[in-house]
């Protein structure tokens, strides 16, 4: 793409030398690194931040410090919502495409509540949101925020519900109303919670901006499908003194889908590639618009469409989403998608091949094998751990292929399995010669027996059944 050149080096162009030049260069090791160059390298890779260099925080380095801050400033501002441990960071993006570096601050997902819910409904919904939890390859997937909507337009009702919400949960809030009186009532009920205020529009911006300053909270600028108005709002609010902005170009389902994706894409490209500061803020998406004009459509169909909209917005640059459907089946795919998209692409796909031990295996313990594709390995490893059995797992070098694609693509062959059996020295650790192979590798079971001289037991097709399999079928 023919990007305009800017004075500020882009992420990829930033070298450790650029950073090193501005560091104290004393190699004092106070940051925990061997020397300033090592620290500079970690800074460039965004593994540490400059505040971790104590000397740099001294008065004499104030100029270098601010130069470094400017040099490292992401094109999309990082906006913090909430206070304390559960505060969420929105935006802070360095690049438009994840392969250019990596994405930071996964899209936050907020579940809505309203000022017309009964206490019971409200409490159940907040509790369900807080309890959402899924264990996935060593990560715990969670929901992040509560969006409180004013349906009634009554300030007192809104204040009451916000009060109940902050008493019940420490998840950060989004306060949703276009009425400044209602907004203020809500803010008074959560004076220290630093909620995200939704939203300033071309009509109410002055009052909302005053509130954002008074309560020191981030503010959404909303201009549905009008990027000129959105840029104008951002410019005005910045001049007003509100620095922590989130941009809302509107989310539209069905016929408005193309405009929705275009607006998000244009804003992010303008920020990351064009250096447009007015676009350099986190973006908010509202998949719950799928519920508008619902009519007699079944809830499942709406939840399905809302999930589709959310998935596309996670891929296309949304930094925070407001959702209404709170079913596990409709949220889980997006919770996983978000984790995937925000995984660091600089990390390798493969794990070290070799022998892994689970528990305290002895000469009668079962021997299994899997591939060195990271996701396969972690899934199998966690299933064996869950079984609480003592076992050996041989990780076969398949160049990062999973079992089925490895067999199909000849990356997982009987030769490789036989070689791995030999190389790991497993023959000296167990007195049986039986290997449990993945069900999806059953095609090569005969060849494995032939080449390795080990007896093959074909295990389950999915590793979730390993615990049961070991109990039912394993005998040394």
């Amino acid at each position, binding site marked *: 793409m023919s990007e305009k050149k800017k004075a500020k080096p882009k992420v990829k162009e930033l070298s450790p030398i650029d950073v090193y030049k501005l560091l104290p260069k004393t190699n004092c090791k106070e940051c925990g690194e061997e020397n300033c160059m090592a620290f500079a390298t970690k800074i460039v890779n965004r593994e540490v931040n400059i505040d971790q260099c104590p000397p740099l925080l001294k008065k004499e380095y104030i100029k270098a410090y601010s130069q470094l801050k400017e040099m490292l400033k992401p094109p999309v501002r990082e906006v913090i919502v909430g206070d304390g441990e559960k505060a969420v960071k929105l935006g802070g993006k360095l690049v438009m495409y994840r392969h250019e570096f990596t994405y930071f601050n996964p899209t936050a997902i907020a579940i809505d509540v309203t000022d017309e819910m009964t206490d019971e409904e409200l409490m159940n919904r907040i509790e369900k949101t807080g309890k959402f939890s899924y264990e996935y390859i060593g990560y715990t997937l969670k929901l992040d925020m509560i969006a409180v909507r004013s349906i009634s337009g009554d300030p007192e009702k809104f204040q009451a519900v916000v009060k109940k919400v902050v008493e019940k949960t420490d998840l950060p809030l989004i306060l949703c109303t276009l009425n400044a009186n209602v907004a203020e009532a809500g803010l008074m009920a959560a004076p220290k919670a630093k909620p995200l205020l939704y939203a300033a529009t071309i009509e109410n911006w002055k009052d909302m901006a005053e509130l954002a300053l008074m309560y020191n909270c981030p503010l959404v600028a909303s201009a549905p499908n009008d990027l000129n108005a959105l840029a104008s709002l951002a410019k005005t609010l910045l001049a007003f003194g509100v620095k922590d902005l989130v941009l809302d170009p509107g989310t539209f389902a069905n016929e408005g889908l193309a405009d929705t994706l275009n607006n998000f894409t244009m804003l992010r490209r303008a920020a990351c590639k064009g250096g447009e500061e007015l676009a350099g803020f986190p973006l908010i998406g509202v998949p719950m*618009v799928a519920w508008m004009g619902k009519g007699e459509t079944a809830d*499942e169909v709406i939840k399905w469409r809302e999930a589709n909209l959310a998935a596309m917005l996670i*891929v296309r640059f949304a930094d925070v989403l407001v959702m209404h459907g709170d079913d596990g089946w409709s949220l889980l795919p997006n919770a996983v998608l978000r984790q995937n998209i925000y995984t660091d692409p600089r990390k390798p796909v493969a794990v070290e091949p070799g022998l892994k031990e689970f528990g305290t295996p002895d000469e009668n313990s079962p021997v299994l094998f899997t591939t060195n594709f990271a996701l396969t390995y972690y899934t199998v490893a966690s299933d064996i751990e869950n079984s609480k059995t003592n076992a050996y797992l041989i990780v076969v070098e398949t160049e990062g292929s999973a079992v089925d694609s490895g067999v199909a693509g000849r990356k997982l062959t009987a030769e490789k399995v036989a070689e791995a059996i030999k190389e790991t020295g497993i023959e000296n650790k167990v007195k049986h010669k039986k290997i449990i192979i993945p069900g999806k590798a059953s095609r090569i079971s005969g060849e494995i027996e032939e080449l390795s001289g080990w007896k093959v037991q074909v295990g389950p097709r999915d590793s979730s059944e390993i615990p049961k399999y070991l109990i039912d079928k394993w005998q040394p």
Partner: protein
Amino acid sequence: MADKKKKDEKAGINFSPDLLDLLSKFQEVELEDFELEVKDLELWFESGTLPRQLMPQPKAAPIIKGKPRELLKTQFMSPIETYPGKIVEVKLGATKGEGGSRGCSVVIGGENSPAFYTFERPVVHPPVVTLDVFDMALPLSKAVKMHVKEVIGDPAAWAKLAVENFGADMVTVHLISIDPLLKDATPKDAIKTVEEILQTVDVPLVIGGCGDPVKDTAVFAEITETFAGERFLISSLTQDMDVERCAKFVKKNGHVALSFTPMDLNLARELNRRLYDHLNKEDIIMDLTTAALGYGLDYAFTNMERARLAGLMGDAELAHPMSSGTTNAWAAREAWLKMAPEWEPRELRGPLWEVTTALTLLLAGVDLFMMMHPAAVKTLKEVTGQLVSGKKADSSSFSDWISLKP
């Protein structure tokens, strides 16, 4: 009650077949409706406000000099780019006039902007969907099986169902029975299967092998020759096959090659270069490997996004339309496994897993989706239709979501 609901759904949205039907039936529906009514009732008795004096009092705003009094109007400059490269157009299927027997052909590729950057340029050819048909029984997840159980083992009937009921643009014939480790069916058997499908449906076909490089070569050789001129997509040609021989018989008989590589753009370029010795660029589609949501989709997504951007930037070796084996989404256990009640029903979770995988890759630039579940197919086609419709958003009612009563 559930039946009435479905009738209304049909009347309002005119799904054919109804999305809800495809998503299976829910005992829960009735129960949820009942709960909703109870909730509505409770609203009348609940006021939930606190006396004003118990609430904290408003704060004073810090004084900032020179706050603007009017909106500072400015223009947003649309960041429009031009690209030196263009994705090759590839035609699949040949009509009678074109030397084949298909009722229509399908063209993919031709893009000169990243996927659905329609603020920049309109979509040239919207992506198409080919549905999987297997030539023998195989293990399928429950959510999929319930829609095809009548036709398992009868590939021609399966193809007909895919085209007529599920809206497939194309059909993929997976010749898994030729696998020497399964049935070891002969090329002659495979030809018979393909012939039956050609007689039953008139959409373009993808011919899928079993993954054994030697057997696939033998079967592809006979199929391409027997059905010369049909412009099948031969799925797939891989590095460990006799690439030269395969490329030659694909070219000689007027078909298209699917160049398949395992998630590595250098290998993709290398295989394409080998194919260029015998095939025109317009005869090659590439498959960069699709991993399931949760099981490597991030790698697949980024690989495809990079390939598409590289192609547009002038890397001719990657400027081919992309195909995705989106059915791989079902390799994720979350797509099919019976899980704890809070994640159920899997009849919804499963197809949503497939469609989430598909939508992610749609935005990376995939042109041809090989898919499985009818509801996932239907959704992908609907979304694609919306994205290329050229219609504008109605922004006037957007803010109503704030006070929406679902």
